[in-house]
């Protein structure tokens, strides 16, 4: 039995994200590097699922399917990390509070297991999102 968990999402650069980005954002390696959410082992336990399971991450601003992996730079219980990119940007808080800067860090999100939903590639995600074809 799995249950949704609530965590605080931050985004940012990883070296895998940087390398994959320069190698081409249309390539599968970019999805592998950025279409993920890094969760703390304690949060995995609460979520009740295995590593490398697809999950749906939902905030007040949107929703996206990514693969859940164990935190590489932890422990950070209660904090989740999605590398910067189109996946993270589906759910970050776009409000700039009159600074010009969207709130990319510190977004409350809900993570739920979505085993049968695919992680889309970057171009597909943006294309389908623009055409309103996302679930």
């Amino acid at each position: 039995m799995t249950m949704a968990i609530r965590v605080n999402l931050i985004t940012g650069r990883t070296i895998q994200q940087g390398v994959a980005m320069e190698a081409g954002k249309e390539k599968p390696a970019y999805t592998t590097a950025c279409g993920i959410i890094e969760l703390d082992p304690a949060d995995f336990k609460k979520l009740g699922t295995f590593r490398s399971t697809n999950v749906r991450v939902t905030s007040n601003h949107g929703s996206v399917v990514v693969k859940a992996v164990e935190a590489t730079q932890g422990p950070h219980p209660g904090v989740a990390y999605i590398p910067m990119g189109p996946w993270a940007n589906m759910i970050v808080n776009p409000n700039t509070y009159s600074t010009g800067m969207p709130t990319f860090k510190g977004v409350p999100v809900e993570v739920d297991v979505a085993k049968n939903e695919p992680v889309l590639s970057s171009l597909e995600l943006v294309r389908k999102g623009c055409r309103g074809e996302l679930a």
Partner: protein
Amino acid sequence: MTKTVTDVVCPFCGTLCDDLEVVVSDDGKDLLEVYNACAIGAEKFLHSQAKDRITRPRMRQEDGSWKEISYDEAAEYTARILADAKKPLMYGWSSTNCEAQSIGSEIGEAVGAVMDNTATVCHGTSLIAVQDIGIPSCTLGEVKNRADRILFWGCNPAHAHPRHMSRYSIFPRGFFTGKGHAGRKIIVVDPRVTDTAHVADVHLQIEQGHDYELLDAFRVAFKGEKLPDFVAGIPKEKIYEVAETLKSGRFAIIFFGMGVTQSIGKNHNIDAAIAVTRDLNEYTKAAIMPMRGHYNVTGSGQVWGWQFGFPFAVDLSRGFARYNPGETTSNDLLRRDEVDAVFVLGSDPGAHFPFSSVKKIYNLPSVAIDPHETPTTEVCKVHVPVAFVGVEVGGCAYRMDNVPIETRKVVDAPEGMMTDEEFLKRVFARVKAIKGV
């Protein structure tokens, strides 16, 4: 036979490493190997050689497919959408040279555009803070040769600026820092146990989004005043200890990144960080520096600084330069439907803007000028591939400490490809013809 080009400048991050060696074929057409670069920099050089690279402009058709067009047609489309728009947004400018930025600014003035660079989602809030209270900064050379207290706040150079630590901040032996790493104390403030934190003497695992409190706590601790038991999840003993470490150094430097600029509080976090630096100067020499991301985002701020007086978010639509972050910044303009055409050069808002902004670009006349195929090219109507600056064409770039460095050309671009500068000149000529100026 091959030849090795030395002292090549890396066009990836704001560290702007200038010691790369690149092996090229004898005819100067193929780039074979890259030495001294980090994984990301090396990938950037090598990717320019990709066999599936797009080398000609293309226009999106009704059915969603691409049709190849000439550079002239692409320049005509670009000039037309800019000239026809009431208030076009010209965004990006950080992955190109100052020469291209300069011509872009002239186009912006001619068409009354809003000019914005990637600082808008990166260190824009730092720039606001600098305008609020100033900045005591230094060059990376001073850091290497003098700094013995290094504080990384909300930044992770091990991933984002991979060679920063070995070239300037942690490991190198400098004139007054002969012991290298052993002579320096490294402090990291980050909500995660980052790979940078692993090489630090002290890691303060701050509660995410509580940077302002902890920065203020340091100002209290410097003066030896009373603190509550915990601030931002850090016990007060630890705060006093780190404050003492900073005060006891000969030269302290604070590097800060997206952890403070993008978390809630934004520019006010940087205000506090700069105030900490100022206070620290009561006891020792201290400086602070933003960890700029794109290799020439600093340069675009410089170019606009001297041309318009503002480093980002410059609105030229009224015939003079206005600057009001929150109003003239890209994401606010897009979300409020205040622009009617989008021009992107040297950046990828499709991947790095919140999706609500990306969707607006999709619905507007739009052009993306970028060597890569990206989520931005995916949502734009026209994609103009260009030569890689720093690989296939040289030009000026500014390092994160505002030091200008001339990047170098190491190989030829594929046959018939234009550079940013050449393409912009063609667009500008067309804009002048359309506008009759």
